[in-house]
């Protein structure tokens, strides 16, 4: 069994790591000191179990799940010092969690449950319960983008526009391009609260990045964006933009 321990505080990781090392069933213990490192390690090492601190700077525990996808998460034990809201959610969804500080007995009881879940092969029957922890749109102010072996955060508000390209989309950020795995339709829903509007079947634009519009023909416009990009507003989506702006073009 391979286990990843995620916590931004070193002593908190040590507490769990020390317990894991005494367990002969645990072949390998991995550590991550923040959410981004956790996402990287989960993707590259595919551990069987993750002890996931809920409160971490930048990308917190739920952000990690959101980046990986609930269905792709290893068996997860949430660890928290104090978060009554989260604890109620764990209880309601029958998820495993540890409250800091915890006794060795409490840890052992959790481990026994985890092992029986791994043993019976229904490790992933809790996906839906984990997914229920994550509100659908609230966490999308940053996208977690992996490229060239490193993971970056891109603030939604820094993206000028997004272009569909196959199963990926291209994020246009300050004149640079990043590939991101998602459908344009999904992103359009998630980014709408952050001032993004669909202007074309294959383009999603940040309203704050529009410099001006240029009419081309037959009621079609071209949007001129910051950092030199241009993209077309199709007639089909023009009405949506007008509705979003509350005025006619």
């Amino acid at each position, binding site marked *: 069994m391979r286990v990843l321990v995620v916590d931004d505080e070193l002593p908190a990781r040590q507490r769990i790591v*020390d317990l894991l090392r005494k367990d002969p069933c645990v072949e390998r213990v991995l550590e991550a000191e923040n959410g981004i490192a956790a996402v990287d390690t989960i993707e590259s090492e595919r551990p069987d179990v993750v002890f996931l601190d809920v409160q971490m*700077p930048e990308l917190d525990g739920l952000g990690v799940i959101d980046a990986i996808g609930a269905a792709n998460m290893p068996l997860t034990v949430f660890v928290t010092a104090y978060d009554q809201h989260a604890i109620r959610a764990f209880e309601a969804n029958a998820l495993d969690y540890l409250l800091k500080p915890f006794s060795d007995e409490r840890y052992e009881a959790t481990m026994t449950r985890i092992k029986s879940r791994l043993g019976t092969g229904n490790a992933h029957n809790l996906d839906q319960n984990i997914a229920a922890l994550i509100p659908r749109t609230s966490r999308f102010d940053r996208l977690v983008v992996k490229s060239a072996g490193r993971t970056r955060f891109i603030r939604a508000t820094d993206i000028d526009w997004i272009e569909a390209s196959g199963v990926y989309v291209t994020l246009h950020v300050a004149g640079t391009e990043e590939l991101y795995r998602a459908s344009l339709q999904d992103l359009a829903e998630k980014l709408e609260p952050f001032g993004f509007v669909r202007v074309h079947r294959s383009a999603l634009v940040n309203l704050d990045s529009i410099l001006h519009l240029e009419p081309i023909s037959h009621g079609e416009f071209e949007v001129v964006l910051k950092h030199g990009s241009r993209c077309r507003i199709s007639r089909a989506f023009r009405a949506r933009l007008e509705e979003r702006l509350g005025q006619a073009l």
Partner: protein
Amino acid sequence: MFLWNWLVYLLIVGVQQGFRYYRQYLSGEVRLERLERQFAEARLNALRMQLDPHFLFNTLNTISSQVERDPRLARAMIEHLGDLLRNSLESKDKQEVTLAEELAALNHYLAIQKIRFADQLKVELCVDADVKSACVPCLLLQPLVENSIRHGISSRSSGGTVTVSARRVEKLLEIRVADDGAGLPAGWNQEKSLGIGLSVTQQRIFGLSGSEDTRFLIGNRPNGGTEVEIRMPLKLAGENV
């Protein structure tokens, strides 16, 4: 007749003066009462910060993690936590302490945070020797440092540095608490956005050491991060003012 007029005049002046003294007495009472209330609030805030569930439970968890690994460190942390709690329970009867005493209390808090955040948290103390005996409102520094750690450092995974400095500027004591974190959010405004902890701190500084030179300013630092700057009349312990 002339004498009568004079008597009436004196009577009026006398009543007026009496009334003025009475009002002054009342406003003095009110001022004292307000100071005491603010002090009670500051104590409550300091206690709440030490008993801040995140701080308390994470500290206990840190101790728990070191019990086997490093028993000496675990015992040292228990002592720091004990001293910290004792300090806020005992400070009941004094409103002012020397800066040296205030720093000693702060050290217990910082010692715990440094163990929790390991090398992510750096603290620089830079206090001139000639202001160590200066009188300051007690429990002044901890809420400021707590704020720097919470907003400036623990919200970034790369960590950061908190700097506490104190020096004499002519007849004033100047204290600065700075971090190199994210800085104030856009649209932050000291009058409107001050949290309860800091607004109590501000009121106490003005209440205990108010003068035309007293200041309490929170702003962004030129190279990133936030800084609190306090200036108040320098009063050394044992000096009569």
